[in-house]
């Protein structure tokens, strides 16, 4: 049984049908990447999984149980942590406070949460020196580290990462993906990426979304092998490195 299974998911924003029957699955222990152009429905899929967008029809099963229609607070308590597009680090709170709040989905004494937050800086040494800096003072790459660290504080079984490379310098993108490859050792990851080459380099499986539908799914090298897909979505000239 897959950890996450999406069946025929439809999401409407008013008149607009953002998802038109998405079906896909994420196996436990895998990194799965959702690829697609702007507006294809990648973010909406993640938002539906984490409860921010209400499904119009279809079902979302997490560990065999339906979570479609539950609120985000309930879903994160079940073990799905969503690091949304744009990082959304609380600007008026410090880095440490931001990371500590990531544990809001579970009951633990504040002292323990504080210790766990300190331990996060071992995984993200670049932001250690900003422990007490306010969120708004950080750069994009640093914010992304804080956002991922905060997402991991939930101790999720499934981590949803929305465009972690967006707007970052190439060297920072490398650093972020190095962290993803470390996270995958004990957490299942569903990754949304526009940067197809990076996205597939860490993935076990990939899906291509097009105007609200999954048009293709396969292992990274199969996706690269598909000439039409490569030209249309993955940037035809690039070569997979992983």
């Amino acid at each position: 049984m897959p950890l996450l299974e999406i069946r025929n998911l439809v999401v409407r924003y008013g008149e607009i049908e953002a998802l038109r029957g998405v079906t896909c699955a994420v196996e436990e222990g895998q990194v799965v990447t959702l690829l697609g152009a702007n507006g294809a429905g990648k973010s909406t899929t993640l938002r539906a999984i984490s409860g921010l967008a209400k499904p119009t029809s279809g079902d979302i099963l997490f560990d065999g149980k339906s979570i479609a229609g539950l609120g985000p607070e309930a879903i994160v308590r079940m073990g799905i942590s969503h690091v949304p597009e744009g990082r959304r680090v609380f600007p008026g709170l410090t880095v440490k406070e931001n990371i500590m709040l990531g544990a809001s989905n579970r009951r633990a004494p504040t002292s323990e949460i504080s210790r766990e937050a300190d331990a996060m800086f071992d995984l993200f040494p670049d932001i250690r020196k900003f422990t007490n800096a306010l969120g708004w003072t950080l750069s994009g790459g640093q914010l992304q580290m804080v956002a991922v660290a905060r997402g991991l504080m939930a101790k999720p079984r499934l981590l949803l990462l929305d465009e972690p490379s967006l707007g970052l310098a190439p060297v920072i993108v490398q650093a972020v993906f190095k962290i993803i490859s470390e996270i995958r050792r004990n957490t299942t990851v569903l990754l949304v990426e526009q940067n197809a080459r990076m996205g597939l380099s860490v993935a076990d499986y990939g899906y291509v979304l097009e105007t609200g539908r999954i048009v293709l799914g396969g292992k990274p090298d199969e996706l690269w092998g598909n000439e039409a897909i490569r030209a249309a979505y993955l940037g035809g000239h690039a070569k997979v490195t992983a």
Partner: protein
Amino acid sequence: MDLALQLLFTGIGIGAVYALVALGFVLIFRATNVVNFAQGEFSMVAAYLMVVAVEAGLPYWAAFIVALLGMALLGVVFNLGVYYPLRHRTYLPVIIATIGASILLANSVLAIYGPQPQVLEGWFETPGIQVGPVYLDSQYLLIICVTICLVIFNFWFFEKTLLGKKLQATSQDKEMASLLGISVSTMIMITFIYSAVLGGLAGILVAPVLFVSIQMGSTIALKAFAATIIGGFGDVAGAIIGGLALGVIETFGAAYVSVPYKDGFAFLVLIAFLIFRPQGIFGERVAEKA
């Protein structure tokens, strides 16, 4: 000089009341992005609750607790009845609902209690103490002490506790807060309860100095609203400094310029700020805007 010191004491005393109500304005504004126009009525209702409880024969301290518990309950009802049903709408329907609630509260008290202003005794038997050239009125002393304690509590609560951080997170980005598992509706409920109790405290503390009347709420609220703009809208420290400054300015204005125009000074200052420094003393912090 002696007179100035005396006026400073009185001004800070009345300014502390404005500061407490202004703090309630700011906390609700930050949590919901809406100005609660019924904030002043919280003070008025609490003062009447206090009058009722004292008349019912309760000792002063017990009446005080009953009135504050009543305010906490009003905060719950206000949140569920006025804010919660409209939380997904734009700010305009919510603001109109708070205006409606303020009219409802004022007229309910009018219907029950009639238009005659009531008198509430002060907490202390001793009217005050003479310290050098300044006479310290015991009620003003109490107001200042309670306000100092609350400002310290407020700082500790929002800066040092995880719950305070969750409240701040909610006011900065509700959707993200909910993604982390923070119960946004609980956080907003806590904000309304806390603001109703703050407003209530201000009303109970100032009642022995003023009369307890239907109009006291709107008078205090207008001054407190001016205080939040002078201090910098949305800023906690600004609300407190703005409230104290306004109390001092109007007290000095009344003494040295004109007593009948006492209430006018607050609004002259407000207009001056709106023209020359609309962002207030502290401005809007970059932190909340980024």
